[in-house]
């Protein structure tokens, strides 16, 4: 039974949902178990529909509290939303995988390192759950310190491991799920993999430093730049131009950085390039180069990247409304 209780501000509707359960008074244990399942199912439905709900307080036996390194958080500590890859896409692939937990910083837009990881997970058709954690305002919880001893996120946790470092995470996911999703992502033989590793290192050492500085200064910095900042912008733009000249030659020889296929090496470039192209006026560094422009249009048009960009544009519902 659903009872509409109130309409607030012409945009919020308060309802009560009364669940009914047939019970056998001789078998209370079984009844309570079924009742628990019913409540769990209801809460799943509420989550799917983005309906914020609260349960009435229950007396809890303190001697049966969950382990202190449980990864579950009270809902008012952080924002939490779930993206499940549609099960029909992975029909016949094998047993359902437990979603990989991805811990990332809150707020929009999504951090480059997080979107790098999510793109990889989507390419490999691995279900995941994004859990945002504010490392500044949340006290250092033991379970997070275990996951990320450097004190920076993102990090992932699945049934076998906790791991940090976005490129290490991408390598792990690509290797663990080698047989599903995009199979060429981390190469199908040692020589292909060596080429991918080579360009992944280039991305990390030569490409990422200047472009992330530029993005920080141009897209997320103050509107009026100091003299020092102007100089830094010039410096980093010059460095990035040098790297992109090399990419232009490389991408004239092959369609993607590591060779014939889209791989982790190309994927790793997506987040910061997207910021530069959409949030600053320096996108022409990419679009005005023939081969780099072609490559950028190709990799940014992939379904996986479009999905991650879509996640950034629709923020999750705020807690407690």
């Amino acid at each position: 039974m659903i009872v509409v209780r109130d309409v607030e501000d012409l945009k919020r509707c308060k309802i009560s949902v009364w669940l009914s359960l047939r019970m056998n008074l001789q078998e209370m244990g079984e009844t309570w178990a079924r009742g628990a399942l019913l409540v769990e199912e209801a809460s799943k439905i509420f989550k799917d529909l983005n309906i914020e709900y609260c349960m009435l307080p229950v007396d809890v036996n303190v001697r049966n509290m969950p382990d202190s390194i449980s990864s579950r958080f009270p809902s008012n500590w952080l924002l939490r939303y779930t993206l499940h890859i549609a099960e029909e896409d992975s029909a016949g692939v094998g047993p359902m995988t437990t979603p990989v937990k991805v811990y990332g910083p809150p707020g929009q837009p999504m951090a480059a390192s997080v979107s790098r990881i999510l793109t990889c997970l989507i390419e490999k058709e691995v279900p995941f759950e994004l859990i945002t954690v504010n490392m500044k305002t949340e006290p250092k919880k033991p379970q997070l310190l275990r996951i990320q001893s450097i004190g920076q996120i993102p990090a992932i946790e699945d049934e076998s491991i906790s791991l940090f470092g976005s490129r290490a995470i991408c390598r792990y996911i690509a290797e663990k799920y080698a047989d599903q999703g995009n199979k060429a992502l981390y190469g199908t033989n040692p020589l292909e993999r060596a080429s991918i590793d080579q360009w992944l290192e280039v991305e990390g050492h030569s490409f990422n430093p200047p472009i992330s500085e530029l993005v920080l200064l141009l897209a997320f910095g103050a509107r009026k730049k100091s003299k020092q900042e102007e100089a830094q912008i010039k410096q980093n733009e010059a460095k990035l131009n040098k790297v992109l000249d090399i990419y232009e030659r490389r991408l004239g020889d092959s369609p993607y950085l590591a060779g014939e296929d889209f791989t982790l090496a190309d994927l790793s470039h997506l987040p910061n390039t997207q910021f530069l192209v959409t949030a600053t006026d320096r996108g022409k560094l990419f679009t005005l180069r023939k081969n780099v422009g072609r490559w950028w249009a190709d990799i940014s048009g992939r379904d996986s990247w479009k999905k991650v960009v879509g996640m950034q544009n629709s923020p999750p519902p705020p807690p407690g409304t």
Partner: protein
Amino acid sequence: MVVKVYGPITAACPQRVLACLLEVGVDFELIPVDLESGEHKRPEFLLRQPFGQVPAIEDGDFKLFESRAIIRYYAAKHAESGPNLLGSTLEEQAQVDQWLEVEAHNFNEMVYAIVLQLLILPRMGQPTDKALVQNCTEKLAKVLDVYDRRLSTSPFLAGEWFSLADLSHLPGIRYLTEEAGLGNLIRERNHVNSWWITISSRLAWKKVMQLLN
């Protein structure tokens, strides 16, 4: 087949590659590249490494650059025959990757900035930015604190055994303790110090040091 390694023995990244090749028992030929005269920026070298950096390798027809990609390739290639520098399970390998990434981004960035200011710029007749060195040293100290905590729970970064993650630090820490005069950063941290003593005593690294001297 002998692997040709292009680069000077004095530079950190070629040292990293040689340490790995010696660990897994691959024969190599070191072909020096004269950085002082700008050999690495000339067209012939740029064909080998388009960013004008060392090292680059040539193994028959197979060519590769970026030291951490090179060590991954050879460690994987000889995982069965030599010491296992990459771990035996997917999870162990992920730990190695994780700490390799830490070395490349958190550790190496600071060490490289310090080396640039204290060693490279003066050699080119340019002044040292002392404030920057101080800043980087403080950041590096914080990173080493995290290492110290990690190494109090296991003898090596990725776990119970020596891996590429530990090996990758050898050239950088050598610079810190020798030319840069920042050995105190290592000595002041018990676990980092015993780890450094252990990994720098390895035969392969000692051979690299012999080549250097």
